[in-house]
């Protein structure tokens, strides 16, 4: 590490240049001396003495237009450590939900005699759960040690619970998908035996996958909420519902893309139900949490959440009105899938943004302390 470390004072020189640039850029410099001191920690008239252009790390300029909540901090640094999870975990939230939604679709198709839904659902479930496993292992600091997850089962760790849910769902979804290959096998010999055995085995496996699917789709809401990240934790009543809806909508999207109009009826109803759940829960997350709802509105996460709303709503409408057109149905399915992706990335990055800014940690906690103090004073009188 030391070999690639820049020379001492390098960052200071850049810092100095940054200050100089800020001053040259028409930044406000106050009159020297005199006057009463601004109370420490309160916004003074000189707070805009920096240029927004000197900020690094493209978090978008939109945040600067949001009225500042007043709070005290340690050099503006975050109190929390923002999540170390990368985009793979946001992607996993989508693929995990997609696997769950597709498995439910497949089981429904299997039980009601809609082979197109069954096939598409099973194959998608296997592909999505494989991608999920890849994303989860790839995001570890020590991928080769992924099996350490299997040495304990802890109710207090949603990630441990998720590992076991995935361990139950994955093989079942895998067997169900492999069973779809039965018609391709020769009719004689050992493979012929497999051809006869696979469909009933796949039947059982498909039902087992569907039985664990709702847990797979909703535990991820707890996974995010069981952290100190303000915009995730405070959203705990709604995140599982949001993710359940998003999973249903994405599963339905697969059905709309893959199935002919004659078989796609259940996928249409699933799309509407999923979209309704997702949009309601997202609306609650975006409006009900006070200050910590803000990250869901601003910057890139805000853009993603708005895109998710438009795409999901359009997908649900398209699923209903396009019942006679294969093309409209397919478009609606694609919109639902894209909406689900946008919602997952939006929720993920809104949480990361809330941990990066000390405002979302300090202001709500300070308000809570003041409320408790007031209550104590009142009861003491």
């Amino acid at each position: 590490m030391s070999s690639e470390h820049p020379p001492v004072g390098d960052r200071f020189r850049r810092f100095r240049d940054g200050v100089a640039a800020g001053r040259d850029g028409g930044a406000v410099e106050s009159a020297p001396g005199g006057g009463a001191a601004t109370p420490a920690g309160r916004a003074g008239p000189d707070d805009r003495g920096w240029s927004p252009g000197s900020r690094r790390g493209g978090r978008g300029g939109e945040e600067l237009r949001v009225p500042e909540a007043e709070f005290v901090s340690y050099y503006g640094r975050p109190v929390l450590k923002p999540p170390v999870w990368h985009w793979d975990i946001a992607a996993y939230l989508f693929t995990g939900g997609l696997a769950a939604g597709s498995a439910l679709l497949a089981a429904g198709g299997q039980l009601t005699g809609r082979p197109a839904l069954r096939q598409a659902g099973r194959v998608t479930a296997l592909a999505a759960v494989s991608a999920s496993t890849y994303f989860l292992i790839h995001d570890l600091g020590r991928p080769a040690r992924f099996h350490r997850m299997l040495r304990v089962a802890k109710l207090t760790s949603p990630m441990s619970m998720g590992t076991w849910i995935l361990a139950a769902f994955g093989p079942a979804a895998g067997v169900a998908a492999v069973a779809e290959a039965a018609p391709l096998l020769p009719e004689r010999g050992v493979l012929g035996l497999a051809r006869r055995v696979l469909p009933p085995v796949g039947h059982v496996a498909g039902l087992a996958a569907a039985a664990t699917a709702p847990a797979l789709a909703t535990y991820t809401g707890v996974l995010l909420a069981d952290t100190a990240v303000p915009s995730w934790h405070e959203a705990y009543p709604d995140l599982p519902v949001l993710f359940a809806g998003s999973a249903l909508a994405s599963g339905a999207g697969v059905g709309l893309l893959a199935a002919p109009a004659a078989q796609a009826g259940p996928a249409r109803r699933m799309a509407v139900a999923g979209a309704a759940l997702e949009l309601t829960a997202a609306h609650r997350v975006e409006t009900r949490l006070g200050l910590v709802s803000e990250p869901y509105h601003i910057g890139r996460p805000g853009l993603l959440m708005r895109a998710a709303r438009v795409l999901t709503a359009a997908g649900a409408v398209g699923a209903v009105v396009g019942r006679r057109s294969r093309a409209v149905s397919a478009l609606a399915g694609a919109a639902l899938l894209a909406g689900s992706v946008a919602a997952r990335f939006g929720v993920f990055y809104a949480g990361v943004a809330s941990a990066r800014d000390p405002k979302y940690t300090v202001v709500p906690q300070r308000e809570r302390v003041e409320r408790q103090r007031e209550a104590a004073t009142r009861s003491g009188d």
Partner: protein
Amino acid sequence: MLPDPNSLAGPLDPAPEAGWSAAPPRMGFFTDTSVCIGCKACEVACKEWNDVPTSGLDLLGMSYDNTGALTANSWRHVAFVEQPRPAGHRTPPFAGNPTGGTTSPSSAAVGATTADPVGTEPGVPTGSPEAAARMSAGPEFLGMPGAQPPGRATGAESRSDFRWLMMSDVCKHCTHAACLDVCPTGSLFRTEFGTVVVQEDICNGCGYCISACPYGVIDQRKDDGRAWKCTLCYDRIGAGKTPACAQACPTESIQYGPLEELRERAAARVATLHERGVPEARLYGHDSNDGVGGDGAFFLLLDEPEVYGLPPDPVVTTRDLPKMWKRAGVAALVMAAAAVAAFVGGSS
């Protein structure tokens, strides 16, 4: 055995709860910031004893704090806060002189955008320029650091009253430790002394503990991918010795001992300070009824916790976990019902 009703929140003795029988008394730190002189001997002693890798050497624009934050490569972190207000006794040496900040808002704002490549993730993340500018909140731009202290070159009229807060921060070894609760491998465990330690031969770097910690303590090393933090010198205290930082502290700002005894000592110290005219002295993390059930490492502070970068009212996230699982259960049932209805209802 039924779990303790307080196993997720509330007062509790953590070692017996974790299954230790005949556990020794709970050990901890009391860090009295009123006598901290900012020498950073604790940081150095910790690094030496625990063989913690280098965390780089550069300037962050945060007073004498160039460590920045607690990270996987800094298990003690001395915070420096410069405040334009009279220090110590109520007889300011420059009574009547103008007061002001020590850095301009513009310097502070730019300073908040500097990150220190300490070799860990998230390490020392950049801050909010707006908040940094507000923290400095002075009416005067003092210019770049020069050969002379601020105010000397320009004459007495620009001098300001000033106090310096220093605090050696460390892992709090919470009674209800979110990092330990969420760890999916069992790498984090509760020792017989009631402290929280990472087993580096188990950790697979999933990063869950990092998002769960309400104090932003635990962190991940980039080169080896695992999470690291203060162990309260588990090896030393097991042999009856004092942790390296407390051993090195020249002013006994860092005190190590049985937690009960430290709490009594801290209460007495606050009373003494109040008597001597320091009404802002207060304890932080001593109360076993707070959101984390009390800290194993608690502090005497001279200002609000957030001034030092500490959360004002931290709550262990797993306190709400039963409610979260219930909501997830309801959501799962709704999801299953919606899927059934989609196939059963309707004609097409």
